[in-house]
């Protein structure tokens, strides 16, 4: 919801979900543990958003550079460049690229609530999590006006800001003292589809289960994600 509001994502109607066309820059995937007895199976949640791969499969296939890698390490989508071949969407293992099949519809009362810093995407283009690049730009600018280095907490994407349990953490991986750098160094850290070699900028921490004996192994789908990613060049 925070993401929808921050990034001018149109309201997904029921039909959008039915047709598998809903646009949700971050979605919570729900999986059930394998169990015969329904009562014993429990849901596992996996937040899924653009992984901002360092070596992204979507980037080289775009014929017009509508998606490319920024010097900050973001995987950016340039809406006005996009022509809608949708190849990037095919080539994304995480299925986190969304296509605007229709023009976005906002309730009348909503139109004045749109974020002026984010383009409203029209029909026919791809979009995806931008890691709230408008917030990053603003944070960088403000730090520059103050003449200081960026610190943890200067920039926070909408999802990380809203999450009540701090399950999503954002920060500068280049800074060894940042919270994310320390968490990435943890044993629990893993990449989703790491074997593809895409170097995701977003990694997950495996869940530490309290019933330690049964589930001491890392479970891929039982994960508390944290999203560090961004090694940031402050002069930007």
């Amino acid at each position, binding site marked *: 919801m925070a993401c929808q509001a921050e990034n001018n994502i149109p309201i997904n109607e029921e039909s959008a979900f039915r047709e598998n066309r809903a646009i949700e820059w971050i979605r919570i995937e729900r999986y059930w543990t394998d169990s015969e007895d329904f009562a014993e199976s429990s849901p596992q949640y996996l937040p899924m958003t653009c992984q901002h791969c360092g*070596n992204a499969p979507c980037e*080289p296939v775009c014929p017009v550079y509508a998606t490319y890698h920024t010097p900050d390490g973001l995987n950016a989508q340039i809406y006005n460049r996009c022509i809608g071949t949708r190849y990037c969407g095919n080539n994304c293992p995480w299925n986190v690229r969304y296509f605007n099949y229709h023009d976005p519809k906002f309730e009348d009362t909503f139109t004045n609530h749109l974020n002026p810093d984010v383009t409203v995407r029209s029909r026919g283009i791809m979009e995806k999590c931008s890691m709230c690049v408008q917030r990053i730009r603003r944070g960088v600018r403000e730090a520059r006006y103050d003449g200081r280095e960026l610190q943890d907490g200067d920039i926070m994407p909408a999802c990380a800001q809203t999450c009540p349990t701090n399950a999503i953490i954002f920060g500068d991986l280049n800074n060894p003292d940042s919270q994310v750098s320390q968490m990435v160094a943890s044993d629990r850290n893993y990449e989703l589809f790491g*074997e*593809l*070699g895409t170097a995701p900028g977003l990694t997950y921490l495996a869940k530490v289960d309290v019933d330690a004996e049964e589930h001491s192994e890392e479970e891929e789908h039982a994960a508390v994600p944290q999203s560090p990613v961004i090694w940031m060049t402050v002069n930007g």
Partner: protein
Amino acid sequence: MAEHAHAGHVAPEITARQTIEDATRRVVSTGAKFATLDIALGVLGAIGLIALVLNLIIEGTGNREAWGYTAIVAGYLMSSVLSAPILAVLLRLTRSDWRRPLSRIAEIQAAAGIVVYILYLPLFFAIPEAEGRFTVWVEWPWGAPGFFSAVVLGLLVFGGYALLYISAIPDFAIVRDRSHDNLPRFERYSRLARGWYGNLRQWSVHRAGLGVLGGAYLILYIWTVSLFFWDFGLSLVPSWRSSVFPGFAAMSSLQTGLALIIVTMYALQRWGGLQDYLTWDYFWSISKLLLTTSLLWFYLWFSEFMIYWYGRKPDEINVLELVMFDVYGLPMLLTFLLNFALPLFILMWNRVRKTIGGPTLVACLVLVGTFIDRLRIFGAAWGVENPFAHEMEADNIPDFLVPSVLDILIVIGSLAAAAFCVRMALRIVPLPSIWEVSGGIGLRVRRQYLNHPVTVIAKPE
């Protein structure tokens, strides 16, 4: 079909009688012209056999690396001697006229099939089971991969001999009929000719038999090469799953088969007294095929390379490192030059194709290139420590497979043995194929077309 005789070249008029004389001379004559060569080849072949047995005793079948070079030379011989008859089959199917003096040369290579089979036997025991490793056999319960390969390879070797034999029956009959002065030979060839009199029914059965057998051989060959290269090459390398690879192997084998034929043609027209039969236009025709296969070689190779290189998955990059860039980088480069780049740049000139030396040179290059290529493929595969892992790790890329002394002896011995088999077959089977060549002579007339004298070649349906 008629062919416009080229200006400045007058095809030597050969009569059917002359063909019979030429083809049977080698079979009839008792004095061996190249006895020393034959003996040397035989001795080398025997040494190779001994080395093979020694290797079996010393290394056993447990150590796969020790059998790498056996796999290499088996794959190489399979690609060359067993693929050569394909040309005869193909040209017969398309009813090309220029096959006539060539088809026997192609078929006679299959005489060395037995060497491939002998080399295969230890591999049968050395190859790990299919279950648990990545292979086309997908958890097949038993017999895969060794047993099935043994069966199809056996069929193929047998098919090669059958093709050679059936195609030679009419010629055996001719030898038989000309051997009334020599009783043992007469009896031998009577048995071989199986009561051939050349009546219409025999001919139609012969034709149908050759057609069916040839088609079967072609399919069997593609299948066997695919299978052998799958099981003994590709699937031993973890995460090397290139679906075009069997196609590549088959294509590369055809290329090698052609090259082998060209080299044999050269030898026969230079030292074998067939200069009237194997004139430049046969080299010209076959070198076009060689050029085509070289281009296809590159195309299929590139199809594989492209996908791996662009896909950039780490396990694929590791495979590329192993078989193309790092460990077997130099063999890859040499193969690329010898099998594609040089053939292309030499054979793309029509004037080169119209010589005898040009195609022969390229054929030699291809023969060497393919050997290096087999070294790359099987060397990489048999040097892998753990084919049961499904992915290759970057720090686990095997080293170059260095041959031991026994390996070198096996390689040399097998090649010599193969050559020896062909030499022996040459003493029994008339060459060129009398019925095909003289049949061609019957379909040929000289005619005047506008202002040119042309040779008209009729094409029977």
